[in-house]
């Protein structure tokens, strides 16, 4: 089966490129880490008002899920840029004149994106633990190691869905700048009009209404369930369903654009 091995070698190629360009990693981690430091400093008193955060939950614990999600956003956004780079340099064409599996070109890309989200999430989670220790605010994941895996899965899955958008945009526009601009424009509204950084009860009614239709809210709520409330499948499974639906749409768009590029 060439799909499997082709995907593996392309997966390795993308990760090698990433590791050898640490500046890319730095930039995509910079913002989430800044948010982690800033928001937890600014809003840590939030926990002392009764009824805003769940009992015995620090703002650090609350915000971690949102910041992890923001990170998944950021790194998935770079995915489109890298396919634009491959098209511009002619490397995609170089692959296409070989018998390499066409699907592997996309699959290698997507799996490496997902893997990257997991690695970056682990770094951020580690930092959150460190912050907790330094600031003497409680930070823990209720569901333990298995729950952390659940969080990683949710984030990677969300990252995949989001990669689909940037890949499709990248292949459509062939412009890294456009991908970046469009990505930037939709990231923040989606993030702030969701339950990512502020408790839903804290938000104005219209934002609450919007956030109901915002897939980000679902993904954050699922991660937050693993982190705070436990295996709340009533939250987790619908979230996975919503992410799956988004992924279906964005990856179909990606596949459609890819077919146009390939043929």
């Amino acid at each position, binding site marked *: 089966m060439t799909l499997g091995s082709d995907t593996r*070698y392309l997966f390795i*190629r993308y990760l090698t490129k990433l590791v*050898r360009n640490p500046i890319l990693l730095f930039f995509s981690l910079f913002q989430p880490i800044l948010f982690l430091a800033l928001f937890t400093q600014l809003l840590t008193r939030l926990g002392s008002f009764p009824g805003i955060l769940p009992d015995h939950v620090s703002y650090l614990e609350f915000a971690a899920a949102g910041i992890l999600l923001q990170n998944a956003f950021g790194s998935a956004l770079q995915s489109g840029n890298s396919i634009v780079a491959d098209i511009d340099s002619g490397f995609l064409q170089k692959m296409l004149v*070989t*018998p390499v599996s066409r699907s592997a070109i996309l699959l290698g890309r997507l799996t490496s994106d997902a893997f990257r989200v997991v690695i970056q999430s682990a770094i951020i989670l580690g930092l959150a633990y460190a912050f907790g220790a330094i600031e003497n605010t409680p930070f823990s994941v209720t569901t333990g190691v298995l729950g952390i895996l659940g969080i990683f899965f949710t984030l990677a899955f969300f990252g995949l869905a989001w990669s689909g958008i940037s890949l499709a945009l990248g292949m459509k526009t062939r412009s890294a700048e456009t991908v970046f601009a469009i990505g930037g424009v939709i990231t923040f509204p989606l993030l702030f009009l969701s339950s990512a950084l502020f408790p839903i009860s804290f938000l104005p009614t219209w934002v609450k209404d919007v956030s109901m239709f915002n897939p980000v809210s679902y993904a954050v709520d699922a991660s937050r369930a693993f982190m705070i409330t436990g295996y709340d499948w009533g939250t987790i499974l619908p979230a996975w369903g919503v992410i799956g639906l988004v992924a279906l749409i964005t990856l179909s768009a990606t596949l459609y654009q890819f077919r146009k590029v390939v043929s």
Partner: protein
Amino acid sequence: MSDIISVKDLVLVYADGTKAVDNISFNVAEGEFFGFLGPNGAGKSTTIKVLTTLLRKTSGEVNVAGYNLEKDAAAIRKVIGVQSQDTTVDGDLTGRENLELQGHFYQMKTSEIKARVKELLRLVELESVAEKRARNYSGGMKKRLDLASALIHKPKMLFLDEPTTGLDPQSRSTIWAYLQRLNKEEGITIFLTTQYLEEADKLCKRLSIIDYGKIAASGTPGELKSQVGADSIRVGLENCDRDRSRAKEIIRSMTGVSEIIDSEECINVFAKNASQLIADIVRALDSSDIRLTTVTFAQPTLDDVFMKHTGRRIRVEELVKAPSMMFGGRR
């Protein structure tokens, strides 16, 4: 010899209506070194893209390596090697990693790849920098690495789209030497496109001159040039003003001379059998006490051929600036 490429009535019209390839037909025999010579935008790259399965042709019949392009694109990909006009190496990977990855694209076994990579690194003389990232290679080194990667799977047939465009003269002649070796020693059929006259002349056993998507002429460089007709002999005289008309008279009476014109040196003689005429000219002028300063012999160039068929010189202003020695980074 059987044909490894046969193209009949190939047409490619881009989505915007541009007819890049306009009804061309040609054949390339197995083991041949064949070339397309033409200016930028003549349709060379487009033809290569069609033949290497990258672009879908509008119409026509194409067979490569015994496979039909439409039905067996996948089979064709396995036996051809392609070097595109843009040098495409992954700058983040080392030279060795670039080649290994390419080997994996062809589903080669890891042990097989190892041996082949070693061989190719030696061929293109990149052994000493094999572990360095390709980003840091010079232009010539990148081209060589790219060429090596096109050879990883020992292709039967190599497509090279302007393999030396933009290179300094040293790197060009190095690449030329590799290509001649590959063709002669390993019997790889090579289809090359170029806008350099000397490159086509030196490398190609047979070539087609292509312009505006059409083949203007085909043949061996020698055949094409002899179609233009005459070689030229440039004769310089010590006292040109005084002797010119007398010299012209003497030379005109010789057999084979087709035309005599005044030139910078003094006179320019066009003749079919110029190489044999030189001695006669020298002798005749000498015995008439006309003193010669120079006699140079020039064969028609492919540019003359291009001129004859298209009415224009190869659009020189569009040629990539002739790589000058001054910029040829010696390492």
